[in-house]
């Protein structure tokens, strides 16, 4: 970061990377979205509510949510083995738990809603970008929702709290805190931290991330509007 607070990719400390978000990009999925978030390129596809296989996983009281976060072998610098890594399994779990508070599945007992995420190219903050796409893909699939889930990371780079850490910053960064947020309900549904923050930095970092989530939310809304109102049926 230079003396004017300009970061290695030219952004200000509270500036998001470029985000491009498109809804309804997959023909076969019940809902889908494609996001480019910095250099992240991520697809999300939704199937469901549909029958659960294997059946013993079904819940007779409500629908269940499943999530797979997966990286294509060519998505990172060194070719990635296609089998799911422990990191991918953990991220699948925290993404599922971040989306769960937003979806309303009580009217769909014995069914599953499957969230499939494919990272075609990975950059810093891929789990947040994946969540942003998955959340509007769920809306695109017509799944009843309490709120959108908007996600963005903040972190500490060169002793400053900055919004939306990219890959290059992350390597030499001091902390990275991915956050997912339901903007209308005001709830944090994903939070992780790697790195070292003082208590006051922790507060600032969380507030910065939530500020980013609110910006992302506007982009998500716009993408949905584009599909459903400007090019769409109404």
């Amino acid at each position: 970061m230079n003396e004017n607070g300009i970061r290695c990719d030219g952004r200000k400390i509270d500036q998001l990377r470029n985000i491009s978000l498109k809804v309804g990009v997959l023909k076969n999925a019940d809902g889908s979205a494609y996001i480019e978030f910095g250099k992240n390129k991520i697809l999300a596809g939704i199937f469901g509510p549909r029958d659960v296989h294997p059946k013993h996983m079904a819940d007779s009281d409500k629908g269940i949510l499943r999530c797979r976060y997966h990286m294509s072998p060519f998505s990172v610098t060194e070719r990635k083995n296609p089998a799911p890594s422990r990191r991918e399994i953990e991220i699948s779990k925290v993404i599922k738990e971040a989306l769960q508070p937003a979806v309303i599945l009580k009217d769909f007992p014995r069914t599953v809603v499957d969230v499939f995420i494919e990272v075609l190219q990975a950059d810093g903050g891929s789990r947040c970008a994946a969540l942003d796409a998955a959340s509007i893909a769920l809306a695109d699939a017509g799944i009843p929702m309490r709120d959108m889930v908007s996600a963005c990371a903040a972190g500490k780079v060169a002793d400053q709290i900055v919004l939306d850490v990219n890959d290059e910053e992350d390597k030499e960064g001091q902390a990275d805190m991915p956050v997912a947020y339901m903007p209308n309900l005001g709830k944090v549904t994903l939070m992780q931290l790697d790195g070292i923050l003082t208590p006051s930095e922790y507060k600032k970092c969380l507030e910065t991330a939530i500020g980013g989530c609110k910006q992302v939310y506007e982009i998500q809304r716009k993408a949905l509007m584009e599909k459903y109102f400007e090019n769409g049926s109404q």
Partner: protein
Amino acid sequence: MTSSVIIEQLKRERILDLLKEGKRLDGRGLYDQRTLTIETGIIPKADGSARARLGDTEIVTGVKIQPDKPFPDLGDKGILICTAEILPLADPGAEPGPPNEEVIELARVVDRGIRETEMVDLKQLVLKKDKSVIGIFIDSSVINTDGNLFDTCSYASVAALLSCTVPKYEIKEDVPALVEGQRSKPPIKTIPVSVTMARIGEHIVVDPTADEEACMNARITITTNSEGNICAIQKGGNDGFAVEQLFKCAEIAISVGTKIRKRLEQLM
């Protein structure tokens, strides 16, 4: 469920009825492919990449190039490996997990098309004989399925390969070391083109959709090289072909292949 079975049945009858008049459900002629679009360079972090769309079938392929150990007894050749995955978001029937027999067949047929035509001169990819070679990994992710994964995957893979650049490695202290900023084109010798045909009743149709595959009797994929020779074949499906049909399929594969090859040549 029942109503969808009935719809499937009606669709099948409609496809067969139309074929008797030489027509197809989507208006194509029997030997016409669907619209093909190919974009390259879509994954900048990969050494080569492409997205191919054939109708609604869509596949993204990335090429990664890195030093590797040669296969035993093949110490004078680089490595080339094709893999494929039908992403679970591509198809309601696809399941996450290790590849099933259909995906393995897909990857191996695409692999053979590239390998048997000798598209890449693997002998130019040796860093140190028997010890260290360049490995080319061609990984395909199926994004949406609507039939004929073979050709779509083959075109995406070939396009990713044609558009890739190979980083330079040198052996230093017995270990391959990257030479920064010296990338070159891969040693391409020919361009393989795969053409897949379905037999439905006694009709041969090129580039079957998922609906057509659901009612086909048998399938054949024929790959030709730039000289118009036949280099790889895979018959599939639960019925057979008459010999005359196989002769005819080869003719079609050569003729359709020539058109596609012109598209691919522009990517070099």
